[in-house]
């Protein structure tokens, strides 16, 4: 079995204003795979990304990257490791320095990681070619480029140091759909060529489904379900996942429409965070926070091979959900939320 590339265990983060943004979140990424993190605003998905990159310091938990403890690392060693752990942020208009040309922006990242001037310039030209930014744009400033082109530059910058893991935080959310498709295709193409892993954070279910080998669903700072992508879409076990999927607008008939708003993360409900909006909540859901349990089901062995397109031996098949009903075996199959799959 392959060793995990990223092992984030029991991460928690409480902000100064008292909001527990991330509450005991664990995420594992294997080399070369794409793990999607999906959830609505305020679910802690972006904060989780920042904790993993150590752009924020976690209160508890640790992050191991490539077998090294990232959490205790400082100085040069941390910087060296960060070359392999890069970020594509949501909004390139604000993440690219407006006073540097796009070439300078990519060179800057390389110089930070110790490349000499000439090599950095050569590498930058190569990268801009690779992501499809026309040559004659290379001396332009960010405000002279469209959103799609800027996001290509941000990707080139992230890939410049040959990272093993790229965290994409809502990397295509700000783009028009026709341009978004170009960037998604580019991300997949680059992954096939270069073999890095993605941690793809997004609120857009269709996009996450399209890209991911495995998916982590978050709600109110916690992981509520985790599974291989294909299995999750075929058989969501947690009532929240099910409601989330059925909320995606489209032609399919009646849907599960959740009542109410997300509770404030500053004052989350006791027990299960989802119980206030859950259509199948029980009294006991208020008592204790449900622990993730394995989702049993017909497809656990037979169809998992087809879930992973690489056919690799990673643990992509494990399907877990944090719900009392799942724990008691009345989850996915008999849940009244079900839209009637036999």
């Amino acid at each position, binding site marked *: 079995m392959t060793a995990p590339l990223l092992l984030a265990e029991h991460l928690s983060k409480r902000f100064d204003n008292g909001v527990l943004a991330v509450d005991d979140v664990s995420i594992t990424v294997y080399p070369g795979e794409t793990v999607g993190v999906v959830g*609505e*605003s305020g679910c802690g998905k972006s904060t989780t990304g920042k904790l993993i990159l150590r752009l924020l310091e976690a209160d508890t938990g640790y992050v191991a990257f490539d077998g090294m403890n990232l959490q205790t690392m400082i100085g040069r060693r941390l910087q060296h490791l960060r070359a392999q752990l890069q970020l594509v942020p949501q909004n390139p208009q604000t993440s690219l320095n407006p006073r540097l040309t796009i070439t300078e922006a990519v060179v800057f990242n390389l110089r930070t990681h110790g490349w000499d001037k000439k090599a950095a310039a050569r590498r930058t030209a190569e990268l801009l070619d690779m992501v499809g930014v026309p040559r004659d744009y290379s001396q332009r400033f960010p405000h002279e480029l*469209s959103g*799609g*082109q800027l996001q290509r530059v941000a990707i080139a910058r992230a890939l410049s140091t040959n990272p093993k893991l790229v965290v994409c935080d809502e990397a295509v959310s700000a783009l*028009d*759909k*026709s*341009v*978004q*498709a*170009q960037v*998604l*295709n580019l*991300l*997949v*193409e680059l992954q*096939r060529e270069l073999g890095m892993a993605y941690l793809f954070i997004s*609120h857009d*279910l*269709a*996009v996450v*489904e*399209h*890209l991911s080998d495995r998916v982590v669903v978050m709600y109110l700072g916690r992981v509520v379900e985790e599974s291989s992508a294909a299995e999750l*879409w075929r058989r969501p076990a947690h009532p929240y996942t099910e*409601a*989330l999927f*059925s*909320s*995606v*607008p*489209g*032609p399919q008939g009646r*849907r599960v*429409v*959740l*009542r*109410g*708003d*997300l509770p404030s993360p500053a004052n989350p409900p006791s027990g299960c965070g989802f119980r206030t*909006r859950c259509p199948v909540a029980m009294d006991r859901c208020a008592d204790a926070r449900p622990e993730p349990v394995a989702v049993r089901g017909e497809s656990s062995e037979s169809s998992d091979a087809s879930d992973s*397109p690489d056919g690799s031996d990673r643990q992509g098949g494990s399907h877990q959900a944090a719900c009392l009903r799942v724990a008691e075996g009345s989850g996915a199959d008999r849940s009244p939320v079900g839209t009637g799959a036999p």
Partner: protein
Amino acid sequence: MTMTSFGRTREVRGARGAWAPGGKRPTAERLEPEGALKVTDLSVTFRTAARTVEAVRGISFGVEPGRTLVLLGESGSGKSVSARSIMRLYGDAVTVGGQVTFGDVDLLSLPERDMQDVRGRAIALVPQDASGTLDPLRRIGSQIVEVLRRHRIVDSAAAGRERAAELLGQVGLSDPRRAVRAYPHELSGGMRQRALIAIAIACSPRLLIADEPTTALDVTIQAQVLDLFGRLQEELGMGLLFVTHDVGVARQIADRVAVMYAGRLVEDGPGVEVLDRPAHPYTAGLLGAVPTRDTPRGALHAIPGQPPAAGAQTPGACAFAPRCGYALEECGHEQPELVAVGPGHSAACPVMGGRVPVVVGQRPTTDETGQP
């Protein structure tokens, strides 16, 4: 329909509003057009000292009472400008051409004073950004009462607050009386959007113009708000002009879909027809760009290039031709007109004798579509 040049329907108000307080029958005459919205050859031009931007160039569409028309397009396509110019929300720097009629009232030639009676009353707008639209310093209730009093639906602030609570209940706020007294920042994004909808429906408009009203919302909240639109439309029988960039949203709510690109309509027809059997390569491209369960990874049908900036000039040519996999030589020097491709379904593309298949992963060759 015969169009009087300046047709007005004046009727004694109070006849429709069931909540009009008894006793004091309002006497003022009001302009209350009813019926279908008809937009013919609408053009919108922004003029600044530096340049002139033609955001919308000659589009026509209609919205029947009780029905939903979705204006679908990407940023800069002119969809919001079209919808908002119907209400004449732009000032003097903007030239609106063509004809916009609602029932038998010509909205574009109406004096501004009469137009103010129409806005918020016969035609109301739900904007996208609730946080930027609501006055942060005033309670929600007071902002609803303002509309009710402006259109003399109620004649006292107290009656207005009563009605405001009813409206907030109608849009699904769980504690409407508390919401009446709340300031915008005390409500969540979804609740603020509902408050905006409550303001828009306060005077039971005959036409609701919704400009990306769910785009800023989370998907579970969006589902609630889309449901709400459907329910209100059933209850109030109003027409709905819904502006969105989201193909899925269009699929869910549209009776008809009009697709915009670079300030023009490229396709127009029944929702199911347009979204399942698109006849314009841009529509097909837009549909293929959204991942579905069957799309192989990394094989999205991306449209090359990018949408033109608002008002970019393409005189005498198809604006989509530079990005189009089907483009013929003539597309570069001939502006295609909308032609019928099916019952009530038209497209502005000369390459579509047959239908353009929605292609996932690969671009079809043009010989799949025979010449008309």
